[in-house]
């Protein structure tokens, strides 16, 4: 049985070592639907891990409430919450082998030996640890340790699954593979999950929903698409992917002026003519050409990255832009010093108030 999670006006204040106090989580309210995977995403120190640890019961909220379903969890000690957490360091019991690690929680529930064996075998199979039951943790690779941590949680069939930056100790290739596996597994078991990470690509690839946090508060929540395409603030736009922030002035319902040049913008909410706004222009949403019209700039740096060419382009009165052009092998590279014309795609430009 999985549960929805409701968080209402949650605050956490720590005593700082210097004697003052630090607000780690500020008035956070969230609703996480049963069976969904929600990511808490933000830079280090934004309060995401503290929030997760309050859900697990390792930290006590200073004020506010946490509900699993309709049950208030605030006073429930961690061992009775029926959550299962994958720790950043995996926290595998070094004195127990793989089987004993996975069976640890089941033993505490006083299940029969036969049932424990069946359930552990099944989960080991599910997590690709079939032949490793009697291995000591020290004999496992990083990815295998990660799987043990995951298996140990899933075997409990908990109400809530919690992930605290579970992939941050793996190398890039393995990280990509594991996040696919975690997503697949979560959807198969259908357990409500909260996933903490500072890696936006990881968040984008596994989440039903992303909660971007900054300085203890929720900056924005939405599907990965919403958050990327329509960031609510400069912070969110800058944290999720890369972005050019361009000062502009509203001309009419379809266009803005950048450095005196008219750019078409879709979905402009109007606003009085002359309002100063900031545009979020993603590097991959700009087309470069040598046409002698529109917004023009000089290539300051050109970097060949294989799949894309990355340019820094100085645009008169509009700062330096970062632009990515795909497939440079075929399209060639503009040399440094070339004057180019920049055309942002109207659908991809987002306007910040």
């Amino acid at each position, binding site marked *: 049985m999985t549960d929805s999670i409701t968080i209402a006006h949650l605050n956490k204040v720590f005593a700082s070592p210097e004697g003052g106090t630090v607000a780690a989580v500020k008035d956070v309210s969230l609703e996480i639907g049963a069976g969904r995977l929600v990511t808490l995403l933000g830079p280090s120190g934004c309060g995401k891990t503290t929030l997760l640890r309050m859900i697990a019961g390792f930290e006590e909220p200073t004020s506010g409430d946490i509900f699993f379903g309709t049950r208030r969890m605030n006073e429930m000690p961690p061992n009775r919450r029926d959550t299962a957490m994958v720790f950043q360091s995996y926290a595998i019991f070094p004195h127990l082998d793989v089987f004993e690690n996975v069976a640890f929680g089941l033993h505490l529930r006083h299940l029969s030996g036969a049932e424990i064996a069946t359930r552990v075998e099944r989960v080991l199979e599910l997590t690709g640890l079939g032949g490793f039951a009697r291995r000591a943790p*020290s004999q496992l690779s990083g990815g295998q340790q990660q799987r043990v941590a995951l298996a140990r949680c899933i075997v409990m069939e908990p109400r809530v699954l919690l992930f605290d930056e579970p992939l941050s100790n793996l190398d890039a290739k393995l990280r990509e593979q594991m996040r696919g596996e975690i997503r697949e597994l979560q959807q198969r078991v259908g357990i409500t999950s909260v996933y903490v990470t500072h890696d936006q690509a990881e968040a984008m690839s596994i989440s039903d929903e992303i909660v971007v946090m900054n300085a203890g508060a929720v900056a924005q929540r939405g599907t990965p698409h919403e958050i990327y395409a329509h960031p609510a603030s400069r912070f969110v736009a800058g944290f999720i992917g890369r972005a050019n922030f361009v000062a502009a002035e509203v001309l009419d319902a379809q266009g803005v002026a950048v450095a005196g040049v008219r750019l078409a913008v879709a979905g402009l909410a109007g606003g009085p003519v002359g309002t100063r706004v900031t545009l979020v222009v993603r590097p991959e949403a700009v087309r470069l050409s040598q046409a002698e019209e529109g917004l023009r700039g000089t290539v300051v740096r050109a970097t060949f990255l294989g799949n894309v060419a990355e340019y820094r382009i100085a645009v008169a009165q509009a700062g330096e832009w970062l632009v990515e052009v795909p497939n440079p092998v075929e399209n060639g590279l503009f040399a440094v010093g070339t004057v180019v014309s920049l055309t942002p795609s109207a659908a991809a430009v987002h306007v910040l108030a």
Partner: protein
Amino acid sequence: MTRRARAELRILARDPLLLALLAGIALAIAVFVVYPLLRVLLASFQADGAWTGATYLDLAGRRLYRNALVNSLGVGLLVGVLGTALGYLAAFVLTRLDVPCRTLLHYVTILPIVSPPFVSAVSIVFLFGFNGLVTRQVLGLDDFSIYGFHGVVLSQVFTFAPIAYLSLRGVLAAISPTLEDAALNIGATRWQAFCRVSLPLSLPGIASAFLVVFIESMADFGNPLVLAGASFPMLAPQAYLEITGSFNLARGATLAIVLLVPSLTAFALQRYYLAKRQYITVTGKPATSTSKVVGPVTKWILWGLVVAFALLVASFYAVILVGAFTRVWGFNYTPTLAHFAYVFDVGLQSVKDTLVVAVLSTPVSGVLGMLVAFLVVRRRFPGRTALEFGAILPFAVPGTVVGIGYILAFNAPPLVLTGTLGILVLCFVFRYMPVGIQSGIAVLRQIDPSIEEAAQNLGADGITTFRKVTLPLLAPAFFSGLIYAFVRAMTAISAAIFLVSAHWNLMTVQILNQVGSGRLGVAAAFSVVVIALVLVAIGIISLLLRRWSRHTAMVRPA
């Protein structure tokens, strides 16, 4: 109560079993550590049922007691300096130089730690006493006396230098040899590299070792009792004599307080000042590189000194062993089993008693020590520092003070324990817990707390987490704590001598009695039995450790 304290208690109360255990431990420490000390303090201010400071004035006015204080302090300081110097030398040679027989020399050097602290005193009497092998038989002296200042210093340096050695070994091993290499690389001479890099880095460790040796020396009871003699009074034996000889409890208590003050001062310095100033330059790579600050000639000279010390240790033990099989040392060197026959006949009861007390107190002390370490490092509760201090305190309190405190505290209702097995066991449990606690704390601080959180997260309450996860992970600290507690319980004398009775007697007390009545052969035989039992126990405990920690190699994230 502050808001924070209330919040901490509220969280703890969600784990009632753990809270009850914590309360029990706190109460036990209050009753068996703090309360006896308070009783000593109170007794020192009482005469004829009235409050007074006269006992102290009385003490200050008499030359005997002034001398005892000066003598104890003087011996403590000198033994501290010599013991630390010897310990540093041995630690430096055996950890940093590429010399032969390092393992063998290591084990010989630490041998005095596992034997009763006054075995060396007995050896010294055998060698340098009035009928000593060296002084009488070899040199033919008849007016030489080993008793007094030099005898005590010799015996204590020999007994306590190994403690300095062990602690400095850890300090030196934690300093990366690449720092010396760096100094040499930028043009320092070897001597400069040593004086300006190696030595300053180990200075806090040296000071710490000095204070520990000083504390041990002040607290030492057996060596002074055997070797000080009547003309060289010292605090610990004097306090004992006041109580058992003249039944003057108030004066004994006052002497105990005078003895306690320097020890506590040294302890506070070591723990709260120096401990925070230790340099640790752990790089994650094993520091096995040998030191280049020592030239080849110096190297062999230093090695020679360590070998000489090891030979001295070995010869002291050889003398004990030979003495145990010799009819009358100094007069009749024919071999005999008579002394052992005595030990296993008249003395058998004390052998059994000693084993019973040690076997009962060791596991309790060990588990309790790990529990305290767990609570102190992993839980937040009001009075946490006080609990830690109370639990570690017995390390700094001379056994004589503890013994007097136990007599004062448990001789009358509500808790009458004198003369029982219980008082010996309780005394040993709390006296020998601190070393286990300290190594437990050190190990716990290196263990990722999320391993225990994972256990809780999977449904384990506080006690289950401790039992199934923390304790197994603490296995190395737990077993070294067990070894320490067992060794000390088998070799304890200073507190125990106040607590033994006709029903429960200890071998160490027997050894002292035999020395006192001049039967050195029997004393040596007892000593041999104690050392043999200790070595067997260490073997058994080490075997247990190996079976217990089948794969406790720490897992690190890749």
